[in-house]
């Protein structure tokens, strides 16, 4: 039409674009080639800086080229005058900024900036903080930039209070910000150090309450936002338990000493991780795990020489020192006794409340109230349900057992994607409760039948158990950790879905094993049973392998000492 501008058609535009792209690609490839040639030839001069900046300017994620640049810069550092170097650094900082504008989440660029700032004699940290603030304004969840900010703040020794105020401002703008919450969890313990005796990494009550209010605002506003729930979990959590030796057990019969640790450890041969003192004299021993794999584990044991178990003496003392964990434990074997032990009680230590803190039960109680309030409004919110369960466990696992199980049922219904995880968690809690009940009853018999268990955990806590009933559950294996049950005499695991028996290995006192109605198919899986020297009764009825021809013969050969095998 009259008076209108003539404009290229879309085909013409596309063609122009294509030619432009082709041209770009050519330049990119030839520049890359030149850089690699120069690097190989050791020509690390300013021309490499120029070439790499052309490429990195377009694609800042080319990690090798950043390495090249570092090599060049390092070389130039030695050659240039301070003034020239300052100019070089200034250009480099500007270039890095332009790369960050191309990709604000480029690992290579942020890393290079860290490297560069770390080498400067007088870095301008204030400027770097300003840079971070600007990038976080554009995207408050850019964790690359958060990482860099933490680096800068540490280098510049920015007071934690200022950094905390910065996280405040970002959370105010958008609380769905994992980095910001996480940074708080780093800053608050710095701002409010606990007295030496107190648990490290925890907050004083007034601070804690303020944080809880903040985070409650977040999950009442949007209960589906995970970031706030994670922070909530941290707030209520307690510091990692101190390293400790939980249990020490000596058996005269087996001439064996067993140690249970608060966390999995690796005790290497001929290392000084563990020291054993028998009657106050050091004794060199070989440590191994009950299953014989010598992988990091909770339980380690060693054989004792006959001299240490002399029944003529009134008693022997055994002291184990854990050098790395700065912990030790002592137990006594009295004359005429088959065994001796020393154990931390799960009930006294409240071992199973470690998910959440117990110091502030009033705080926990009021948190439980608000979560229940929220749950009424949001009956299907999984985070709320899970938090309620955790709070109940922290408050009183036995008192809330029934309620907890109901919440688990609701939770599984609203979050079927995580059903298996929830089953395992539920199993863990039930096992913990049973363990507590056993200890209160002061027996060594543990009944875990009909509990719908899907997994066995805390087995290192069962070192002293003699009778274990696992029947009528949904277990699929007796895991290697079961080998820690050094005192186990009777094991019933009927009516499960057990396919493997890796944990029924090296159990020195096991006499009866009942595995009716499981899913044992291959004879091979029975192999570990041969390592249990006292096994006399084995019931395998109702397993697929019973149908196979020759099973009885195989068993007779594998387990010649077992007088009663039911198949």
């Amino acid at each position, binding site marked *: 039409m009259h008076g*209108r501008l003539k*404009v290229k058609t879309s085909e013409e535009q596309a063609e122009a674009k294509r030619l432009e792209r082709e041209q770009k690609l050519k330049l990119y490839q030839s520049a890359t080639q030149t850089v690699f040639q120069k690097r190989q030839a050791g020509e690390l001069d300013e021309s490499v800086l120029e070439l790499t900046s052309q490429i990195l300017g377009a694609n800042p994620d080319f990690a090798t080229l950043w390495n090249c640049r570092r090599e060049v810069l390092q070389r130039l550092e030695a050659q240039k005058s301070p003034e020239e170097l300052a100019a070089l650094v200034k250009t480099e900082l500007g270039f890095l900024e332009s790369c960050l504008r191309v990709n604000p989440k480029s690992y290579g660029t942020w890393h290079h900036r860290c490297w560069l700032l770390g080498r400067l004699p007088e870095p301008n940290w204030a400027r770097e903080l300003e840079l971070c603030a600007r990038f976080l304004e554009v*995207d408050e969840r850019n964790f690359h930039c958060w990482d860099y900010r933490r680096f800068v703040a540490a280098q510049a020794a920015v007071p934690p209070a200022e950094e905390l105020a910065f996280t405040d401002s970002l959370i105010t703008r*958008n609380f769905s910000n994992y980095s910001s919450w996480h940074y708080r969890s780093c800053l608050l313990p710095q701002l409010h150090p606990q007295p030496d005796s107190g648990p490290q990494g925890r907050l004083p009550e007034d601070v804690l309450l303020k944080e809880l209010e903040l985070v409650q605002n977040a999950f009442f506003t949007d209960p589906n936002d995970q970031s706030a729930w994670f922070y909530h979990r941290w707030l209520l959590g307690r510091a990692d338990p101190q390293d400790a030796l939980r249990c020490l057990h000596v058996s005269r019969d087996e001439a064996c000493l067993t140690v249970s640790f608060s966390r999995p450890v690796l005790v290497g041969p001929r290392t000084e991780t563990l020291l054993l003192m028998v009657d106050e004299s050091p004794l060199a021993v070989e440590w191994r795990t009950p299953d014989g794999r010598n992988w990091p584990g909770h339980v380690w044991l060693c054989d004792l020489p006959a001299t240490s178990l002399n029944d003529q003496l009134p008693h022997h003392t055994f002291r184990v020192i854990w050098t790395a964990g700065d912990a030790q434990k002592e137990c006594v074997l009295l004359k005429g006794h088959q065994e001796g032990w020393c154990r931390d009680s799960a009930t006294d230590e409240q071992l199973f409340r470690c998910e959440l803190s117990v110091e502030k039960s009033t705080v926990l109680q009021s948190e439980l109230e608000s979560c229940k309030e929220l749950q009424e409004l949001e009956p299907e919110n999984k985070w709320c349900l899970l938090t309620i369960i955790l709070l109940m466990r922290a408050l009183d696992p036995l008192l809330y057992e029934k309620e907890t199980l109901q919440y688990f049922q609701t939770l599984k219904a609203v979050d079927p994607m995580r059903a298996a995880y929830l089953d395992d968690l539920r199993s863990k809690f039930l096992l913990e409760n049973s363990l507590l009940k056993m200890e209160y009853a002061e027996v060594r018999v543990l009944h875990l039948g009909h509990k719908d268990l899907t997994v066995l955990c805390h087995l290192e806590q069962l070192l002293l158990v003699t009778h274990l009933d696992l029947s009528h559950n949904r277990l699929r294996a007796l895991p290697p950790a079961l080998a820690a049950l050094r005192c186990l005499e009777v094991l019933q695991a009927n009516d499960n879905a057990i396919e493997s028996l890796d944990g029924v290995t090296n159990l020195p006192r096991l006499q009866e094993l009942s595995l009716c109605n499981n899913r044992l198919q291959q004879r091979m899986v029975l192999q570990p049973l041969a390592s249990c020297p006292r096994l006399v009764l084995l019931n395998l009825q109702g397993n697929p392998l019973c149908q196979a021809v020759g099973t009885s013969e195989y068993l007779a050969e594998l387990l010649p000492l077992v007088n009663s095998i039911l198949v």
Partner: protein
Amino acid sequence: MADNLPSEFDVIVIGTASVNSITGLPESIIAAACSRSGQRVLHVDSRSYYGGNWASFSFSGILSWLKEYQENSDIVNEGPAWQEQILENEEAIALSRKDKTIQHVEVFCYASQDLHEEVEEAGALQKNHASVISENPTEAVHSAYLPSEDESLCIASCEMLTEQTPSSDLETALEISNVKVTGETEKHDDKTCMKSASEEETSKNVPTTEGTALQPKKTRITYSQIIKEGRRFNIDLVSKLLYSRGLLIDLLIKSNVSRYAEFKNITRILAFREGRVEQVPCSRADVFNSKQLTMVEKRMLMKFLTFCMEYEKHPDEYKAYEEITFSEYLKTQKLTPNLQYFVLHSIAMTSETASNTIDGLKATKNFLHCLGRYGNTPFLFPLYGQGELPQCFCRCKAIIDQFGQRIISKHFLVEDSYFSENTCSHVQYRQISRSVLITDRSVLKTDSDQQISILTVPGEEPGTFAVRVIELCSSTMTCMKGTYLVHLTCTSSKTAREDLEPVVQKLFTPYTETETENEEVEKPRLLWALYFNMRDSSDVSRNSYNDLPSNVYVCSGPDSGLGNDNAVKQAETLFQLICPNEDFCPPPPNPEDIITDGDSLQSEASEASVILEANSETPKESASLGNPEEASQ
């Protein structure tokens, strides 16, 4: 230049061209759209006084505008010269020169006035404004405009005549002689250039600033300060905001006209309850940060708002309540009275009786949909006032002085205020009640004094309408530092003052001399207040007018709504009639894609240079339209 004005155009837009406003918003959009489609467009104006109802004024400008109504000076019709121009096959339509759309104008001044001090607006020609100023703050000058029959301009069915209007006022004489052309020889003149014409001329008259040190109380703004700083004011006759996903924003972006405008986000939504102004939490961040809501309320509100975002997907939740009002519906939801109030009045911005459930849900959804695109509220305000927007669509133009020439055109676009009483004899109009206040502080003080707020005050009695209050801070470039410009708007039931004064009294207190200096006044003080009624012709159908030729297209004046959708819809409809099958306001071509050959070289070069300039002047603080999508992790 005058010699070069062609006598034939595709479209003639009859508007009120002045420094402040070229035409109304719909006319400007149509003119821009036609121009983009290659039509030759002529803007013609004739009025001897300032602006259409879309205009925006400096303080001295609004005083002149007031004077027009107060003096009631009719311009005598100067004879039948135009009748000779009408050809045999043409039919004349008389246009009214006098604007009858504004009524019941009343002005009050509360700021202290030092009568011995000679003050005038820096850069203003206007000197004698004493007549509109009350000397006693409690007794204001009152003037009502009486419409009179005055028809001076005519239009023939295929021609129109512009003529010079005699006037004694130098400033207005300058104004009316402007004819603005948009069309094939596009010339780009910059907004600031346009304004500087009058600025330069008058700067000689500016007395050197001498008064500030003489002010007795530093914190109190006096009337003379307002006069002196009068150019800082941009007082809109219409008070509107842009919904950040409204039709106008879409159009500004699509047409790339947005580069000519800058916006600020409204920072707060306020409510007035139980005698207190409070902030309405409406975004996720607001709810999170709110100190006034309980935890459970936070959840209730978020839950309800989340539902509203996609209410259509959950018919079970509202189907049963379709017949009742939105207000009744809210009572059935899990919402405290607190929250019901916020949703009804401040978010859906409706009233107890006005809308049913569906309308309320729709309005709430629209509000939420606009939230977060450019900031924490759904609204944008154009820097320098709403009056900037029509200008943005008319940025490409040449100014040519022209009179007494016969011009031919196929299409005529006329704002309905131009029609004579004969044409409108069957039309029933609604009225909008308006008030403009200058105050000394915000209705809700916070850390920052640069807040832009919208507050809805529901009508108290049945039959009265909710009053919309928009408070602008000085960074919107509509008022001087240390003051706030407050616009009140409602559908009229009586005169503007009768409708709005009760709300003004609730929110503000008149400035009085007797206050001791230490006295802490809780409410903001009124420095100056203006009331007027504006005609609302937005729902008048074309058929209501008598004897309109088919090539005359009618634009209505501003409507009372908050957004600008009405104007955009109207513009698009009329554009489709003028240019059927043409794209409405397509983006201008990328300068790289323009094929240059011979004749058109000149204009293309200038187009390209304008694009570059416009791109480089994006200001830091204000929201710039374009690519606001949220950065995500």
